[in-house]
């Protein structure tokens, strides 16, 4: 009889597990599943404020934009999320290109910055800009003083032989930040000159990190003298008290557009649209600064946080997101970078 007992216990265990693991699929009315790709402390107040304003119950999952993109792609046959808010525009545009996201025209679009609307029209209405941040570098003021190196102000200054093994940037294969730099340099200098530049810069690079924001952290700790990343990532470190100075390169620089998309096949489409409209309002966008995120908001009426890098002082290039966001161009540039830059001896 023991064997019967054991087997039935085993069966019971299975059922018990099934009972304990309640599904949390948001299907009922008044619910919304948000995939959030900025940091947690910005996601949470957004969700809470939206719940308060609309009475819709939000389930929020925070993942990086690359992870969210991979998840939406894998879930395409039976989508579990409704709206994807935040994160760099690159994967949003890839998702739009593959038809993973839904077209939508919000009534709140009138007041948006041109770059936000341009991204929307380039993707045929599938993704829209909610914030933007310029690319740049930062140096550790203590290290630069102790080494007696003149303060770098331009992309060209980073080629200084005194900075050998002192510059850090992410690997464009793994990080959208670094791919933005690759595309920026190509647009700024022309492809041949840009690759020449990167080959020379390669001698000064101590490490191609995996994550795009890692060079900012490494600069704050003094693990590297110069780090290349988005300026707002540097500003976050500076606000925390790191001995750093952020620089917008004098030749001009590119930028990212943090984006928002509605997932195709969303189970709560109406609520997703409500979130979409709401997230474009100045009230919602003003929450960024409180969460120590210093990007420039896309609604013209949103106050720009005083710590934000002044977009007026930065020479921005006319970034061609349609061309450099397409997967064919991306694959070609990355393959070329692998062959001509990364695999070269120093």
């Amino acid at each position, binding site marked *: 009889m023991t064997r019967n007992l054991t087997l039935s216990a085993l*069966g019971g*265990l299975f059922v018990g597990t099934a009972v304990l*693991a309640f*599904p949390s699929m948001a299907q009922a009315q008044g619910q919304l599943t948000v995939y959030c790709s900025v940091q947690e402390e910005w996601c949470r107040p957004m969700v809470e404020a939206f719940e308060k304003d609309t009475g819709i119950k939000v389930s929020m999952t925070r993942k990086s934009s690359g992870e969210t993109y991979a998840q939406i792609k894998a879930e395409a046959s039976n989508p579990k999320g409704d709206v994807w808010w935040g994160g760099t525009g690159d*994967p949003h545009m890839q998702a739009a290109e593959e038809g993973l996201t839904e077209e939508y025209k919000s009534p709140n679009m009138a007041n948006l910055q041109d770059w936000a609307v341009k991204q929307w029209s380039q993707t045929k209405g599938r993704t829209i800009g909610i914030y933007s941040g310029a690319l740049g570098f930062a140096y550790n003021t203590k290290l630069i003083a102790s080494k007696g190196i003149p303060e770098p102000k331009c992309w060209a200054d980073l080629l200084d032989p005194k900075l050998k093994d002192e510059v850090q940037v992410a690997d464009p294969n*793994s990080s959208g930040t670094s791919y933005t730099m690759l595309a920026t340099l190509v647009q700024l200098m022309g492809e041949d000159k840009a690759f020449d530049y990167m080959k020379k810069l390669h001698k000064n690079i101590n490490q191609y990190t995996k*994550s795009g924001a890692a060079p900012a*952290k490494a600069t704050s700790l003094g693990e590297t003298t110069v780090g290349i990343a988005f300026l707002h990532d540097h500003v976050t*470190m500076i606000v925390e008290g790191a001995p750093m100075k952020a620089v917008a390169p004098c030749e001009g620089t590119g930028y990212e557009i943090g984006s928002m998309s509605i997932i195709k096949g969303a189970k709560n489409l109406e609520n997703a649209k409500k979130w979409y409209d709401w997230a474009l309002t100045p009230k919602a966008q003003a929450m960024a600064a409180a969460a120590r995120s210093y990007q420039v908001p896309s609604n013209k009426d949103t106050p720009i946080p005083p710590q934000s890098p002044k977009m007026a002082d930065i020479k921005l290039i006319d970034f061609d997101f349609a061309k450099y966001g397409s997967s064919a161009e991306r694959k070609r540039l990355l393959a070329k970078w692998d062959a001509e830059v990364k695999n070269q*001896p120093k």
Partner: protein
Amino acid sequence: MKPKTAPETALWWLGLAIASYCLLPWYWIDLSNGLNVTGWPVGASGSALARGIAGSKPWLLTLLLPLGLAALALMRRGQREHRGALLALAGALGLALLLAQGFLIGLKGWNAAWAASLFGGNPTQDGLGFGGFLTLFCFLLLLCEGLAMRGFCRGDAFIVSAIGVIVTTIIIFVFFPVTRVLSQAVWGPEGWIFGTFITKITDRSIWGLDCLTSTLNCGVAWNTVFLGIFVGVMCTLLGLAFALIATRTRFPFKRALTLFSVLPIITPPFVIGLALILIFGRSGVVSNLLYEWFSIPRSRWIYGFTGISIAQILAFTPISFMMLIGVVQGIAPSLEEASQTLRASRWTTFRTITFPLLRPGLANAFLVGFIESLADFGNPLVLGGNFEVLSTKIFFAVVGSAVDESRAAILAMVLLGFTLLAFWAQQAWIGKKVYTTVVGKGDAGLPSPLPRPIAWLCGLVTIPWVIFSLALYALILVGGFVKALGRDYTPTLQHLTTAFKINLDGGPIFTGSAWDSLFATLEVALLSAPLTAAIGLMTAYLLSRQSFAGKRSFEFGTMLSFAIPGTVIGVSYILAFNVPPFELTGTGLILVICFMFRNMPVGVRAGLATLSQIDKSLDEASLTLGAGSATTLRRVILPLLRPAILASLVYSFVRAMTSVSAVIFLVSAKYNMATTYIVGRVEAGEFGIAIAYSAMLIVFMLAVILFIQLAVGERRLGRRALSTPMPTS
């Protein structure tokens, strides 16, 4: 000796199958807002029979055929073999019908064009629910009962059922998702892609050997293998040193040592890497001192092979220690005493008796260390520098800025290939020798003390290691309570309160941002640990004590999910379990299942190593005395398996608490895991909160491990303690 098949169990299973077919909700229903069975029995929560008759899901009625056949087989009189054949047929038919329906009819209609043109119409169905799963389970057991009646496994229905259940679950939860994802290597959206497959798998970035001839990096495959072998060997040796010190010397702080060696495995990922950077990084504590005192220039030596291997050895040595301590304890002292009586020196005894008997343990410890290193993701991410390994490459092939599923699948295949090789090498090394040392007779011998040079060596290796770990942990603890580790050492409680604030007005309300993920993690980890240990040890028992066809491939199948990097497992689980028949994404269940099958190999390895020492005559004695195999397992084998139970319980609990890459795609709003929360903090550069949270997790895990240790208890072998004097009576 032929245990009677009990047809009453089969009857029981048939009854359960019929009940769940007729009464329980067949499809998955949303229970998150309480039990909602409106419309039962014909609505959305209706049973298979009701919905079949009502006409909305007519294909469910075909299941009446296998149910009827099974009833016929059990009711009818006749030859046992014939009835068994009929019962097995009924079970197999039921399984086949149920799965075929599940895979052919999806959420939006037919999943295959040929089925649509054959049957027509546009039927739809959801994922299986209680009724569906339970019926599936019963069909499987009826098949096993039938096979047992036919005389499989000497007619022992318990063994046949156990094999059947484990094999089926491994097929569903390991083979099915893994093939789904690996098929992407040769099958793209445009059809077969053999050409690109060949180009990509022979790529120089994988197999290049440039590092031998120039300053360039070698291919990522070689990097991974060198690292894996180095870490595997070092972990095994260190683990052995710890195990020998803990069991064979008069070392005074044994308990502390045991407890301490557990610390690294309960440390959340990234933390060790981070602490290493803060000590040995360019502006780390030690580098600063070296620079100020001896003007040794600061360098980045910690980034790359050196750093990753130190972090991995720190993290995986305890696992090999826990596996080896059981094996060292199990070696019968009388063999060693016999050797010494025959005038062998301590050294000869160690070399010719103790060490050879340790071989299965060593081989298993190496295998686990090697595979762990291959699958590790957190440490290479933080400390990798320009040294690349397969696991991070795969991760960024899935989530990086250049998404390439086929490349990810190909790299995963390479990784899997190495695991396969390691597995075969291990089998070849252990060979067919016998390692039994725990026998029925009490062993009155004293374990021989270690030869002095070895004891010294062990001490010399382990003590600095412990001091090193201590320093590391002191730093981690400090990190949670200062403003910004590495820059501003002003003490603060701010990180802890952000994460773990408790509002006490009007009853405790957990307002900190980390509580949700902590509770979800604890729930999932506590649920998955016993399940993992149970299935792992059961598998080990079947592998070492039963013989059946396809045993080797069965054994390899259990290792498969362990070898595949977490990211690939995560994506494969979404691909496989996001649509009917098994629609599990978004639930806590998918996390529990993922952990079960990902961590069971440790239970299997620990169980096998321990079981290979236990004499089969112990089981046989119990069986001869009339106990069934279930009773033997419970009364004889399990008590002797205590070290293995402990190892697998602790390991699976801890891994469920600390694994990152596998769960990153499986977490949902309700089931967010502690580690994904921590990774988010690390990404945002908030090391303070990440470390404070990690410190909390360490405390929690330590408490649970102590509890498990108490609950499982120690195994009592017929051995005298080393320190007690000879009894006089």
